[in-house]
Every structure is written in structure tokens, then in C-alpha cells.
């Protein structure tokens, strides 16, 4: 059990959810699997053959920081939906610890757990989970009704939330009379109505049409911008993950194979699985100029256009192409480095050594948590990273959503042990 996520606890931000060594094993006598190092080392097929059990979540650890959008992403069957249900014990975890604001969730009794579900964490579901016999308004007010809020008050509060998610005028309708997108808005409103500390999303938009999905994603971005609520977002859609996530945990076979900012995931995949996963992502739209910049020489410092350190490579390319010279990366009036067409092209082509450009000593203090070292050798992904890919994250979303640790990638000084169980892959 070499799994130790480097604790990323910045002094100011205590984690909302803190998950450590979490296991969920389905099957007979599931308890013995996490406890037995031999069994826990088996792969899925081996475990099933030996014990008849299936490990949906294997030794997962992470912290969700206050105010961030934490995305758990993985293909179907990777255990991500089980994981999010374990957070509020809709599925009872097998082993490990979960803490919300420092309070042990697994130790909660029934009443305390109910309290947690009622007030602190609300969930939005893939298939909405609306009550078909109630109107939109009563569905939204349902969480408050469960809490025992009086009829007029809960209706009033529900009406506010209904307006907030853009469903005015539909209060009297029933879920059956709504489109998929509208239903999910109701689901979102129901979760928001109880004013939870954390919103949990379980693949909320997977069942929606692409266009409506984009609307809803923007709705979530908007809500997050306005309210700054902590969100845990489960998705199987990489572009959705990149678009919404401040940090992304990529899961495979129940393990987290990489945890980092979108830029880290795309820029330095932890292993071949992640690399294959992000191959088609247009790197220039996710990576920032920090990745591409080189130290400024005296000559560079003099002129050329200025770009923000959070600007994407795509934006820098435009600036460089316009000006015809290298661009300076300027943060609060200080020049951090320069990007020129060579370095930018290197990022687009995927040939640039992600660890390449030496970092200036001055790491911006506001960059949030210093991201842990990424262990995977930089490698030279042969794939043409700049191919026209369908999974395009829009530039403004990619740059706008970055806050925590956007530029904090540090060159791996030495091969540190993998942060998660990459050895299983």
C-alpha cells in the first residue's frame, strides 16, 4: 500500500471532503479484501476468481478543497459513480476514511448522516431521480419538505431556485412534461434548494443531447462563478472534465491513476493509459503559456506583445502570429519569461519537454496549491497532438476555470513514487 497522496493542504483552505484509502468491494465477505495485502493486490479478474468479489473503488485518496470543482473522470465501470455515492454513504464503503470538514462520515450515526445529506451535501443524478407525481415546484421543494420546512416557506425558497436555474413559468408542470435538459435543471434546483455546502454531480449531463449538455455545463460554470460552491463532478466525458474541473482525478479500474489540474493531465500524463486518453485533446487550448515559456533574455524583455501567465497556448499563438515576434509572459507587471513560435509549436506538436522550460524562481503566490510532482517520465508522445479533435475545450472555459494550481507544475527533480496505484496498470 504505497498509496500516499501528498497532502495538499494549503494553510488557508481546509479540505471539505477528505478521502483516504477508500475501498468499496462488492461481493461475499467484502471486508477481507482491503485488509489482505495479497488480495488487494489482485486485479479485477483475479479478485473475482479468488473471492467472487468486485472491487469498485480501490484505495482511493484525495481531498476536495473548498470552492473548487473537483472532477472524477473515468470510463464506465471505473468506479467513479460508486465513489461519489460513498461520500454520503448512499453506498456503504468497505474500508478507508471519509471526512467532511474534519468530521468522520463513516462514524456518523443515522441521524447525523441524515443531517449530512439534508444540509451539507446534495446530489444531482444522471437520470434525474425526480418524483413524477409532483410539480416542478414541489420537486424542487422536496428536499426542504424532508427537512420539515413549512409549506409556504419552502415554496417561496423553491421558487427562487427555480428562477435561478431558468425554469420560470414551468413551476406547475410535471417532470413528464419537460425535456431532458429541463428535467436536469429541476434536479439541479432541487439540490441547490437545500443550500448545501457541497454539490455532488453524478454524470448529470450524460443523458442529454450535446447542445443541451453544453448549455448545462455553462450553467454549472455560471453557478460556480456566482456562488463559489464546492462541487464534486463525476463524468466520463474528457472535454467536460477539462472544461469544468479545477482538478481532475482520472480513474481506471477503481483506482485514481492521475490527479491534477487539467493542464497537468494533458501536459504530462502519468502513464500510457492517461496519454491515450488525452491524445486527441487540442493541447494548445488546455495548456497555458507557462508550459511553453523559456527564460527571458535581455533582448526579449524589451518588446513584443504581453500575455497573461494563465493564457492558453492558443491565445499566445494568435498574439505571436499577429506581432511576428516572441511574446512576453507578464504577471503583475513582471516579466516571467517569453514564448516564441518555436516553444509554442513544440507544445502543439507535443514534442516540447513538458519539464523543459526552466521555471523562474518566482512562483506566483496566488497560484493556489502547489501541485504535486508528476512522476511519469516526460516521454515523447508520438501522437500528433494538434490534430483537429472533436473534444475541444473552448478557450475561455479552459482559461476561465483555472484557479487552483494553474501554473504550479514543477519539473520532476527525481522519479518520485506514483501518487496513485499506477503500478497496477
Amino acid at each position: 500500500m504505497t498509496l500516499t497522496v501528498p497532502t495538499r493542504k494549503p494553510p488557508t483552505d481546509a479540505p471539505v471532503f477528505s478521502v483516504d484509502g477508500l475501498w468499496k468491494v462488492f461481493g461475499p465477505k467484502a471486508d477481507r479484501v482491503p485488509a489482505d495485502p495479497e488480495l488487494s493486490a489482485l486485479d479485477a479478474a483475479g479478485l473475482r476468481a479468488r473471492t467472487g468479489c468486485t472491487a469498485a473503488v480501490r484505495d482511493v485518496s484525495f481531498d476536495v478543497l473548498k470552492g473548487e470543482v473537483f472532477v472524477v473522470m473515468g470510463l464506465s465501470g471505473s468506479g467513479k459513480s460508486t465513489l461519489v455515492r460513498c461520500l454520503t454513504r448512499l453506498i456503504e464503503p468497505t474500508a478507508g476514511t471519509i471526512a467532511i470538514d474534519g468530521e468522520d462520515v463513516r462514524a456518523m450515526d443515522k441521524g447525523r448522516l441524515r443531517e449530512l445529506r439534508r444540509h451539507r451535501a446534495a446530489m444531482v443524478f444522471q437520470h434525474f431521480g425526480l418524483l413524477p407525481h409532483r410539480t416542478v415546484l414541489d420537486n424542487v421543494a422536496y428536499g426542504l419538505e424532508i427537512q420539515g420546512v413549512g409549506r409556504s416557506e419552502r415554496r417561496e425558497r423553491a421558487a427562487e431556485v427555480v428562477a435561478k436555474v431558468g425554469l420560470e413559468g414551468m413551476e406547475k408542470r410535471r417532470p413528464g412534461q419537460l425535456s431532458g435538459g429541463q428535467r436536469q435543471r429541476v434536479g439541479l434546483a432541487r439540490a441547490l434548494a437545500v443550500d448545501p455546502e457541497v454539490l455532488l454531480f453524478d454524470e448529470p449531463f450524460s443523458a442529454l443531447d450535446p447542445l443541451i449538455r453544453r448549455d448545462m455545463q455553462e450553467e454549472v460554470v455560471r453557478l460556480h462563478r456566482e456562488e463559489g460552491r464546492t462541487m464534486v463532478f463525476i463524468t466520463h466525458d474528457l472535454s467536460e472534465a477539462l472544461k469544468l474541473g479545477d482538478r481532475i482525478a482520472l480513474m481506471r479500474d477503481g483506482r485514481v491513476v492521475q490527479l491534477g489540474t487539467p493542464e497537468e493531465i494533458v501536459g504530462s500524463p502519468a502513464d500510457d493509459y492517461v496519454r491515450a486518453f488525452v491524445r486527441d485533446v487540442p493541447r494548445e487550448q488546455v495548456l497555458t503559456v507557462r508550459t511553453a515559456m523559456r527564460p527571458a533574455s535581455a533582448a526579449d524583455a524589451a518588446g513584443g506583445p504581453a500575455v497573461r501567465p494563465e493564457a492558453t497556448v492558443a491565445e499566445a499563438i494568435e498574439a505571436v502570429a499577429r506581432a511576428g515576434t516572441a511574446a512576453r509572459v507578464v504577471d503583475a507587471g513582471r516579466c516571467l519569461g517569453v514564448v516564441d513560435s518555436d516553444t509554442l509549436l513544440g507544445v502543439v506538436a507535443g514534442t516540447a519537454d513538458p519539464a523543459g522550460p526552466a521555471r523562474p524562481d518566482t512562483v506566483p503566490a496566488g497560484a493556489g496549491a502547489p501541485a504535486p510532482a508528476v512522476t511519469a517520465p516526460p516521454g515523447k508522445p508520438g501522437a500528433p497532438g494538434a490534430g483537429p479533435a472533436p473534444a475541444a475545450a473552448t478557450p475561455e472555459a479552459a482559461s476561465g476555470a483555472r484557479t487552483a494550481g494553474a501554473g504550479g507544475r514543477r519539473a520532476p527533480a527525481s522519479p518520485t513514487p506514483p501518487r496513485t496505484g499506477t503500478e497496477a496498470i
Partner: protein
Amino acid sequence: MATLSVPASRLGADRLLRSRALGKLLLLALFAAVLAPWAAARWPGAAWPHALTVDLSGPLASASDWVVDNRDSHPLFLYFFGYVSNAVVLCVRAVYLTLLAAGWAGVTVFGALVAWRVAGVRLAAGTAAAFLACGALGMWVPTMQTLALMVVAVLASLALGMLLGLAAGLSDRLDRALRPVLDTMQVLPAFAYLLPVVLVFGIGVPAAVLATVVYAAPPMARLTSLGLRAADPGVMEAVASLGATFRQRLLTARLPLARKEIMLGVNQTIMMALSMAVIASMIGAGGLGDRVYQALASVDVGAALAAGIPIVLLAVVLDRVTAAVGERLGEGAEAAPGRTAARRAVLAAVLAAVVLLGRLTGALTWPGGWVADIAAPVNTAKDWMVDHLYSGVPVVGGTADWAAHFTTWVLDPIRDGLQGLPWWALLLVVAAVAWLIGTWRTALTATLAMAAIGVLGVWKPSLDTLSQVLAAVAVTLVIGFGAAVAAARSARCERMLRPVLDVCQTMPQFVYLIPVVALFGVGRAPAAAAAVVYALPAVIRIVGQGLRQVDPGALEAARSLGATGAQQLWQVQLPLARRALLLAVNQCVVLVLAVVVVGGLVGGGALGYNVVFGLAQGDLATGLVAGAAIVCLGLMLDRVTQPVERHVRKGA
């Protein structure tokens, strides 16, 4: 390679399948080869050996005597059954007197208003017309008697069914315990329920109500449990994620989510209660059923029809109104609460005014002058039919001739064949068929049930009943499959059939006896004919549904390959609808048995006659043994045709 491998693998699968069936048969044959000669040598003769019977009539008669002797003294009766009985009588009387006090106008207006509120203007008009027709046929008082009994029985059934359904829906263990019992109760003929309650309560209203409750509660329990279990897990999870308590989950989510199934349960319970309330006239229910029963006993078709029409009208109205409630719940359209309350007040005022008006004018009972006597003209028509249609019609022959031919050419050979077959051979046939269609478990149950019939000592009459069932099932299946295929292939055919099926499926079993007696007289053939008519709608409906639900993609693929209509039917539709076909056979057998047994009233003889005789003569022992044999026969027929279980398990 590919072309070679496909037939090879199919052949392999075929062989495997055949070998499995063959293996079962071989095993049985081996079993038979050892036991049959021994059994044949030990107990020669085809009929069930007398040495293997247990005579229950003695103990049963003494038990019945004991009950009669102790009914007024034993504490069990004094403090339990006595109270139950009194409470039932009191309730029925109260409802009956209320109905009478409301007067015919009050009841009609009340029914129409309820129908209007839940189902719209058309059904309201239909309801009013139905009530008025009951009055016009001179059947107002019997209709109210039946209605009063129904109201009490239905309310009790719903309460009981709801409780059992809640228990089975929420507890897995109770579900496992209750399900086989409820499933079995569902397949037993109504006749089988009559005698045990008579044993305890004697003939009278309490026995009728309790028989009705026992018969009508299972569908409510089954459907409630089903609805609770089928609650969308996504919704339940969402509700749990909001921190709902168990009670909140049940009251605000699980029960409302099951409302459609529960409403269907209410509908089925009402229909079954009506069906039973009519049959229970034999044990003192009174009302419409009693009129039909009396009329049939004297082959007075006109009087039977006059009482039968109100039953049909009642059935159709009750079915449509409750079904409309179910649909409305599904749509979920509801008016604002304030307006509903105001409307209710207005409606109550209208009702009160009508009742008051009725009382003031003294027109509570249906005015005698408004009664149309249809018995006489119907009997005249029937006499004409007897004279002209019964026999001697050129070329086609008469209806009585058909009945006679059916009896001599079909029923008699089957009966004689069954009775001529050695008893152990019959057991083997039952085992083989049940095993081939179902599992070894269903085969075992079926064989044991068949053996139990022999042990009860009613082997011969049971085989007589069985022969009628088999003949009627064969006729039903041929006609039913044909009609269903026609309906599935032609939209016009379906449009024509649908309203007929809708009406037929709601009618109580008893009613079917009236037209067949008019057409064919009395005897075994009319009983079988009534069974055919009764089972036909269900068979057509199930088969038609199965055919329509065949994957349109598969059908389209067949068409795109140039399959003819017949090829589509035989190679795609029927194989893909296999489960529906088997279910139709199963339902057909169960329904046919129910009516064949009731046919004992019109000369069907055999087990049904034993029950009727037992009731009429107060010879409960004979009746109870026959009732037990009917239960066994029902169990056997159901298990023999029960393929579902294995496939469900395979899929799961």
C-alpha cells in the same frame, strides 16, 4: 468457412437442446420402466387403486358436524368468528339501507357524479344509463343487494390486500413466503373458495363476503407489492440522498410511485369481487347472482338474462371508472386544491337535493310502472330458437346437434381415453409435459397434485373435468391464436375486436352460462362452450400483445430479405412471441378450469356438480373433497403449463 460454421453451430445447439429434452425423457422412461410394471402388477386396472385412497368424507363430515354443533358455544366461534360474522352482517346491512334510503334517483346521481369527476361526461352518462337500466329491468333491489355486499367486500379486500402488499413489498422474507401463496390463489377457481367458508360460517351473507374477500384480496396484495418493488431505484436513491427517513421515503416516494399499480390492483380487486359476489349467491349472497342462479336452475333463460344484464352493466361501469382513475393518475393532471374543494361542495349539494327530492316525493323504490319485463319475450325467442335452431337446420345442423356431436366426438373420447389410461401412465405424462416445459420442481408439484387427486378418491370425476378442460382449451387456443394473428396483421380486424374484448374481459364467469344455456341447452358441451367464450378474450389479448411487441427491427430485417407474410409469421413473429404464447396457454388453462367447474351448475357434471351438490344438500364432506380436488387440478394444470420461472432465472 463462415457458411460452414454457421449451420454447424446451429446443429450443435439443436442437438444440445434436443439432447436435454431427450435426457429428461430418458430419465423418466427409466424411472417408469422400473416402477410402472411393479405398480401395474400390484394394483391392476386403469383407475386409481382403491388401496391408495384416503377416505376423507368421514372425518370431514364429523368436522362439519362439530362446527354445526359448536357454532353457538365454542369460544372460537363466540369470540372470534361470531364477531367477524356480526360485523360483516352489520356493515352490509348499513350499506344496503343507506343505498335504499338514498333512493334510486340518489344512487344514480351519486354514481354519475363520481364517474363525471373521475372520468368525464361520457362515462357519467354511461353510469347513469346503467343504473337506470338496472331499474328498468326490475332488478333495482337485487342490484342494491349485490352493490352493498360488494362495497363491504371490496373495502375489506383492499385493506387486507394493501396490508399484505405493503408487507411483501417492504420485506423480502415476507415476499418469499407470500408470493407462492398469492400466485397459487390467483389460479384457483372461484368455486374452490366457497366450501371452506361455508364450513366455518354456514350459508349466509358473512360466508359470501368472506369468500369474496379471500378471492379478491390477492390481486391487490400482488400488485401493491409489485408496485412498491418496482419503484424507480434512481428516484429512491435521489430521495435517500436528500436525507429522507424511512417513513418519508415510503409516504412521499415509494407509495406515490406505485400508485398506478395500486390503482390497477383496485380495479382488479373490484372486478374479481363482483365475479365472486355473483357466484357466492350459492352460499347466500343474495342479489343479482341469486336471481341468475335460480333462473338457471329452472332453465328460465329470460329471467336469467334480466338479472345477467345488470351484472354486465355493473361490471363495465365499475371497470371503466376505476380504469379511468388509473389513467388520470398516470397523467397526473389535477386541479388546484381550492377549486376542487369548492366543486366537491357543489356536487354534494346537488346530491343532497336529489335525495331530498326523492324522499319528499316518496319515490325511493323504483316505480313499478317503469319496469320492462324482458323475461317473457326472451323466453319466446328462446322457444323459437329451440324449435328452429336446435336441430334439423339443413346443411349446418342445429346448435343442439353441435353440442351433441361435440360431446360424442370430442368430450367422450377424451374422457374415456383419460379414464382408460392406467393411472401411473397419466402421472408419467403429467410429469413429462411439466418437466419439458418447466423445471423438475414444477414437474414434481404437478405430479404430486395429480396424485393427490387420486388419493382423495375422486379420480374419475376429476378426469371427467380434465377432459372438458382439455377439449375447451384446445378449441380456445385454435380460435384465439387465429383471431390474434388476424388482429396483429390487420388493423381493421383489431379495431373490430378491441371493444368486444374489452367488454368480454370484464364480465363475471357466471354470466357466460346464460347465453350458452340458451343456445345449447344443458350438459357438458355448454359448460365447455362457456369456458371457451370466457377464456377467449384473455388468450386473444395476450397473444396479440406478444405479436405486436415483436422487435420491429427483426420483422423489418425479415421483410428486407423478401420473406412472405407466412414466413414472417412462422419464422419471426411466432418464435419471438414464444413467451407470450406460453403465457396465453397458461392463462387459458386456468380460466377454462374456472368456468368448467362453474359449469357444474348447468349440467357439466363431474367435480363442479359435486360442489353444487354438496352445497345444495348440506353434504359438506362431498363438496369439500371435490373442492380440494379442484384445487389440485388447478395447481397441476398451472404447473404443467408454467414455463416462465426457468427463463426468468436464466435471464437473472
